[in-house]
Structure formats: C-alpha cells, structure tokens
C-alpha cells in the first residue's frame, strides 16, 4: 500500500493520546441502590481480572478509535498497486543537462517543471519499482529500484540540473546497466527538452519546453598571424522571431571591448575581434542582456601562447644569468621599462622610483637596498622555511665566498642567508615584486650549480605566468581535463575562486562549472577555460510539452485509491458506535 500523503499518518498519534486519557479516566462503575442490606456480604465474581479487563476495553472507545484511525488513514490517501496489464518496472529519466536550467515559465526552470512532471507521473503510475535517472553526458541514478517511491520523490526533489551536456540513449543504457539495462524496464519515461529520434518502443518522451534562448554558440581565439596580438571569433545565434538588441563584451583578461549589436531574427552571426598587442591568456565573451538560458551567454577561452619574457637589463651583462633565464623561458631583451616583464639590475644602482618587477643582482636601490662592507660568506641557510623560492633548492650546495652587508626594507622577506647576512630577499605587493641577491655571482658557485636555473625559474614564476606545456583552448563541463605533464599540482581553483579537491596523484578532473579555472603547479599558472557544451545552446523554444499518453505503450500498473473505502469503514464504525452508545445508554439508565 502506498501512502501519498504520509504526514497525515502523524495524526494517528492522537489515538494513543485518546487511549491514554481513557485509561486515566477509566472508572469503576457506580450503582446506586435503595439499600446495601441486600448486597452486603455477597461474594464478588471470582474472575475479577477478566471483568476488570473487559471493563477497560470499552467497546465504544474501540469503535471511536477505529473511526479515528480509519479517517487518519483515509487522509493519508492510501492506494494500492493494481495490475492492469503485464507489468514490470518503471524508469523515470530526467534530462539534467545545462539547457534544463533555462527559465521556462513563472521563473521556473525546465528542470523544475520536469521534476514536477516526474512527481505527477509517480503519483499516477503504480509500478512497484521506480528507477530515477538524471540523464546528462555523465548520467546519475538518483533512485534505485530497491528504494521506495518516497525515496524516489526525495531524490528528485533534492536533485539539480547540471552544466553538463546532453546524454543520449547510450549514456542511459550505461546508467541502467547495473539495474538490468534498458530492456528490463517495461516503461521508460524520458522527460527532456529536446527531441530524441528513434526511441525504443518502451521509451516514451515528455518534452518540457519554454523560454527563449539566444546564445554564443562558438568562441575561439588564436594568435594574430600577421601582427603581435590575438584574434577572437564569436558566433552568436538568435533563434527568436524578433530583432534583439544586445551588447557583446569580450575581454583578454586585461582589455575589455564592448560592441552593441542588433541581432536579426533567426540568424547566426560571426564576429571577429582583433586584440593587437594582446598578451592575455584568459579570454571571455559575454552577451548582454542575459536571456532565459544564461549559461551560453558567456563563453571562455584559454590561449596558451608561445610567449617570450621581456627582460630589461641594466648594468653589466652577465652571461650566466642570461643563460639561466633562457633556460627557463624564451626571453626578449628590451630597452623600454614600460612593457618589461622583469628588469634585471646587475652591479649598479637604480632609483627607488623605478617601477616593475626587479631582480637586483649585487645592486642597490638607495634608501631601500644598500650594499655595505664586504664580509666573508658563511653556510647558506633557509631563513624563510617553506618559501616558494626555495622549493627544490638545496642550500647546502650553494657556496658564498664573500658578500656585502645588505640592508633591506622591513617589508622584504629574507629567504636565504649566508652566515648571518641576507643572501636572497623578496619583497612583493600587488603591483610588483623585488628580488635581491646580495653577492657578486662570481664570488659564489651559483653559476655552476644546477640550483641556479631552478632559482631563476622560481623567481620568474613569481612575477609572470610561465608558458604551459599543454594547451587546452577550452574544455566543457563534464568532460575530463587532463592535468598530467603540468608539474606538481599545488592548487586548482574553480571560476568562483573555490579550491577543487584533488587527490594526490590525480591527473585529471571533471569541471562542473563554466568559467576560467586556474591551475597552479610548480611550473606556473595554467588557465583552463570551461564552457557549457555548445549543443546546449540549441534549446528548442517549446512552450509546452505533450501530456504523457497514459493509456499508450505497455502500461502496466495503476494506483487504486483506497480512501473512499476506508472512509466508508469509518462512517460504518461511527454508526455502530452511535447504535451501541444508544443501547448502552438505555441499559445504564435502568441501573438503580
């Protein structure tokens, strides 16, 4: 038996309350007589306990409780599964792809409408076992056949549409395989917002529609082959029947462009946006205003560019440093300080007003970094344990023969020391970073150690994104992203800035949200662009889906409502109680 209004059963607790109250007030019967003389000395009935028990079990109370219980049960809307035709199991499949997040009507998403439809189906169909599947490119079984109908409804209510792409019959078959596969279900109801072709006979489709959608159906960025910079390509589709005033906002992560545009009805337009001199890597485009399906109004692209590090050199050139820089990243020497990624200052002095990232090699900034008297070098030690600059560096392998006493500002961090003197410091804020190596390189063994290029690589990774070994372009929600070959993973942040849990050794992850993910490894920062699958933009603007043809197909079970019969029982019990009470009342009235 299935109770469709389970909370009503809680009212049955009142039966207990009434029974307790009855027992509390269970009274001895009272008989008034004209004289006690005829009663005194009589021996009472020997079966006292039985009589007492019979007295406690008041038939009127029994009938009243029966009436109450029946009414409570009727209020719980009980029903039983009746067999109509050859039966078996029912699978309710809900499309959980991103397009189901389209606002369909009355601020309800298509997914919410689908849930509502699924609940309605579950209440109408009486199959004893119901399997609930959320169908996406990575389907999920929400309710297994072993669970109750209430479990299935709970699972439905607790589910949400994903940002993943559509799943097909293949994915559905895979999801149902542990439960006997698609053929083992007599009826499969597929609630979706798209038309499936060539469905098996047992699968019936309920289409949930509504909500208009214009979206960015394609977004790509590439290097400008002619001039330095990048070129972005955007395709926007307006499937509506009216012109749409929109604004296209596109950004390379540094510069943002905006283009007002009127989209013709039923059109698909391609736009090309040049980004001359752009060195951005995280491109994104937005279509404003957002429509009913916002997920495809924003697209993301990560451009892995063969960048060269622009280095400005001040002072005497040092071939070892240049070699170390080139070992880490291609560099371009520039004389301009405006667009330099790093300024190397070697054995000279620069004013404190100098902007940009600085690497001071036995160099000074008067008033901030000043070199004093030379002193003999001592053992090299890590002063800031765990500092990223020292990662992979073995201080014991570094020798310093002598070095100057270097005064550093309070905001600087001494990373390495030689003896007690600062050897390497870092000072960084939101604007720039300043690294200072106190000794003359030639008085150290750094140029000939393997730790030197590594140290330079650590320094560079603190000031600029190092080129990634792999290029993602963009991935899509639900599709695995390979992280192998990118170095030791330190952190992966999702588009909301939340850390993604990665197990040790995990070499891929499944993005769940569209946007720019940021992967940080010991090799640098890697942008990973993730989009909603393009196919999700192709959402049919169906206003209302057809009703489920209940009598079609191989329908099998039905629900027989029991509450009318139980209500009749309650009424009969009530009538019987009335008659009995009347009779007992007459008998009691005769009692002298």
């Amino acid at each position, binding site marked *: 038996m299935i109770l469709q209004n389970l909370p009503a059963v809680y009212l049955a607790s009142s039966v207990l309350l009434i029974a307790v109250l009855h027992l509390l007030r269970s009274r*001895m*019967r*009272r*008989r*008034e*007589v*004209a*004289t*006690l*003389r*005829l*009663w*005194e000395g*009589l*021996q*009472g*009935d*020997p*079966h*006292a306990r039985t*009589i*007492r028990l*019979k*007295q406690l079990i008041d038939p009127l109370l029994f009938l009243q409780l029966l009436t109450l219980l029946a009414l409570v049960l009727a209020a719980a809307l009980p029903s039983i599964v009746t067999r109509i035709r050859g039966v078996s199991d029912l699978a309710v499949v809900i499309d959980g792809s991103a397009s189901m997040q389209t606002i369909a009507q009355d601020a309800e998403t298509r997914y919410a409408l689908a849930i509502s439809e699924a609940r309605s189906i579950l209440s109408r169909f009486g199959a004893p076992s119901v399997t609930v599947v959320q169908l996406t490119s990575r389907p999920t079984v929400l309710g297994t056949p072993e669970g109750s109908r209430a479990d299935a409804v709970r699972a439905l209510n607790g589910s949400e549409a994903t940002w993943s792409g559509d799943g097909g019959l293949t994915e559905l078959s895979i999801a149902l395989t542990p439960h006997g596969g698609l053929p083992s279900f007599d009826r499969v109801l597929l609630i979706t917002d798209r038309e499936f072709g060539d469905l098996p006979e047992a699968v019936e489709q309920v289409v949930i529609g509504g909500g208009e959608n214009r979206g960015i159906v394609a977004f790509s960025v590439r290097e400008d082959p002619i001039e330095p910079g990048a070129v972005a390509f955007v395709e926007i589709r307006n499937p509506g029947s009216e012109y749409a005033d929109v604004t296209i906002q596109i950004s390379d992560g540094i510069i943002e462009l905006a283009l007002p545009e009127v989209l013709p009805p039923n059109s698909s337009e391609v736009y090309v946006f040049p980004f001359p001199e752009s060195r951005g890597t995280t491109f994104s485009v937005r279509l404003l205003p957002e429509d009913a399906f916002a997920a495809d109004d924003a697209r993301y692209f990560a451009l892995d560019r063969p960048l060269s590090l622009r280095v400005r050199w001040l002072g005497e050139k040092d071939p070892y440093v240049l070699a170390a820089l080139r070992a880490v990243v291609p560099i371009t020497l520039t004389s301009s300080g405006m667009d330099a990624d790093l300024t190397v200052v070697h054995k000279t002095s620069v004013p404190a007003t100098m902007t940009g990232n600085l690497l001071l090699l036995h160099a000074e900034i008067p008033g901030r970094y000043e070199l004093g008297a030379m002193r003999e070098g001592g053992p090299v030690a890590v002063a800031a344990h765990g500092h990223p600059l020292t990662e992979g560096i073995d201080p014991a392998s570094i020798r310093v023969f002598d070095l100057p006493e270097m005064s550093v500002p309070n905001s600087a961090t001494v990373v390495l020391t030689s003896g007690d003197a600062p050897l390497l410091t870092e000072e960084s804020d939101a604007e720039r970073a300043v690294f200072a190596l106190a000794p003359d390189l030639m008085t150290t063994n750094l140029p000939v150690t393997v730790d030197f290029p590594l140290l330079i690589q650590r320094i560079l990774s603190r000031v600029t994104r190092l080129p990634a070994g792999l290029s993602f372009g963009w991935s899509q929600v639900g599709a695995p992203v390979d992280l192998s070959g990118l170095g030791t993973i330190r952190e992966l942040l999702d588009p909301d800035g939340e850390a993604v849990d990665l197990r040790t050794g995990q070499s891929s992850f499944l993005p769940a949200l569209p946007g720019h993910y940021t992967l940080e490894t010991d090799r640098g920062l890697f942008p990973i662009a993730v989009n909603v699958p393009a196919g999700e933009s192709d959402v049919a603007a169906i206003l209302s889906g057809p009703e489920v043809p209940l009598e079609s197909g191989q329908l099998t079970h039905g629900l027989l409502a029991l509450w009318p019969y139980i209500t009749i029982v309650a009424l009969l019990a009530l009538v019987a109680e009335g008659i009995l009470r009347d009779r007992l009342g007459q*008998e009691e*009235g*005769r*009692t*002298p």
Partner: protein
Amino acid sequence: MEKLLDEAFLQRLSNLRFMSSGRQGGRLAGFHKSPRSGVSIEFADYREYTPGDDFRYIDWNIYGRLGRLLVKTFAHETDLPIYLLTDASASMELGTPSKVFYASQLALALGYLGLRSLDRVGLFPFSNRLLEAVFPRHGMRQLGRILSSLEGLRPEGTTSLDTAISEFLSVTREGGLVVLLSDLFDADGLEDAVARLRYRRDDIVVLQILDRDEIEPSVSGYTQIVDVESGRRLKMNLGRRAVAQYRKRFREHQRKLSAVLLEQGIPYFVVPTDRPLERVIFEDLRAGGILH
C-alpha cells in the same frame, strides 16, 4: 417532573371504583354501603352515568336539558376516606422512570378514582417521618391539591415506616383505606406499622414499587455500590455469581414481606416500574379485588 397523567387516561378510569371491605363508615354519601342502617334521601351530588348504575337515579330532567346522563347520589351511600401514603425517601429516586414518579402516577390515578366515587382522598408523603399531610376531602379540587403535592415531591432522607405511620395515625383519627406505595426496603418497621393500622381498623393495600434492575440486576463488572439513603459504599465485582446471590437474597426479602402482609390479610402487589400503569390498575388491582 413531567406530567403525571393525562386526561384521556383519567377518562378511562371512569368505570372503576374502590371496593371496601365494609368495615368503614364515612360521614358523607358514597358508593360504599354504610354499616349504619337507615336510608338517606339527602341529595349529595351528581356524577356521570356509567353502565351498571341504577336507572332510577338518572336525572332525566338534566338529560332533557343538557343531553347528558347524570346520576344523583344520596347520603345513604357512605364515603370512604382513602389515605395515599407515598414513600418519598431517597431510594424512591432510583430507576427509570424513577420509582417516586411511578408511585405518584399511581397515587394520582387512585386518588382520582376515590374522588370520583365521592370518597374523601388524602395524601401523606413520608420518608423517615411524615413529610406533608393533605387531609382527606371530597371533590375534584382535592385532586388538584394532591397533584400539587405530588409534583412537589423531592425524594430525600432515609425510610422509617414505623415512625411515619405513627405520625400518620396521630394526625388522622378516622379509619379508612390506606394505600401504601413504597419500595419497602425498610422491612423492619413494616410489621409494627401494619399492626397499628389494623388496630385502628384501617383497610390496607400495599403496592411495592420496584425498578426492574432491583429485581433482576444486570452484570456490571467492577462496581461501586452506593446506598443512596445512608451513603455507605461497597466495592465488588458484580458478576453472574454475585447477581445470583443477590437474587436469592432479594427473593428471601420478598418472601418475608409477603409473609408479614399476607398473614394479616393485607393485599400486597409488587409493581415494577416498567409495567404499564393501565395494566396495574385494570388488571392487577381489579384482579386483586381492590377496584371493581
């Protein structure tokens, strides 16, 4: 109290009258033959003709004027004082209908019969004493007084038949027909009371008013039994066995009562309250020679 008797019922009593043993003699005319010799020609009253009346006493003049058959009554027929002694102790409150209500109906009916037969009828409710005295009088106005007294009865107190009869005898000097209506659970004083009435040469009729549950109590399980007159209580499991014992004891009580009364030739009727009043009057009392 609901209406004791309706007029239709009283009309049906028209053919009945009390039978007297002939020992008593009243001061006024009635249908009871006087023990005193001589014929009275003194006109006393009219009454409706009933079959069996002597045609000679029909007043034909009135019939000619009014079309009604009325019979003249004369003083040579002596009246009979009828004393209705109604038990109004607390025990009479019991039953459905209550015994006091049933007894009041019966007393009113008998009073009506007596007054209609030109007897003097009085009412004396009692419990452990005489509660009120409506002295015997003629005429239908007396019926109103009796009715008023009966309607005012509120059963209370214990029963002391001996004391009540003593007080009754002290306020009434003339012997007559004493109709005692009581549940007679105070059997101890009954013998003395009856003896005193007999000594005054009263005719006595005893109507024992009982509820059916007093005769055949039902099984009611674990019960607190309360004496409504004394307030004493008793707890017992009232099963079949206890009920059987009660019946046996009740039969013994009744046997003693009847022995006392029948030994002195006193008509004695057990009247359950579930017995229709008409059957009591038209069957039981006629068959018992109280009415004819």
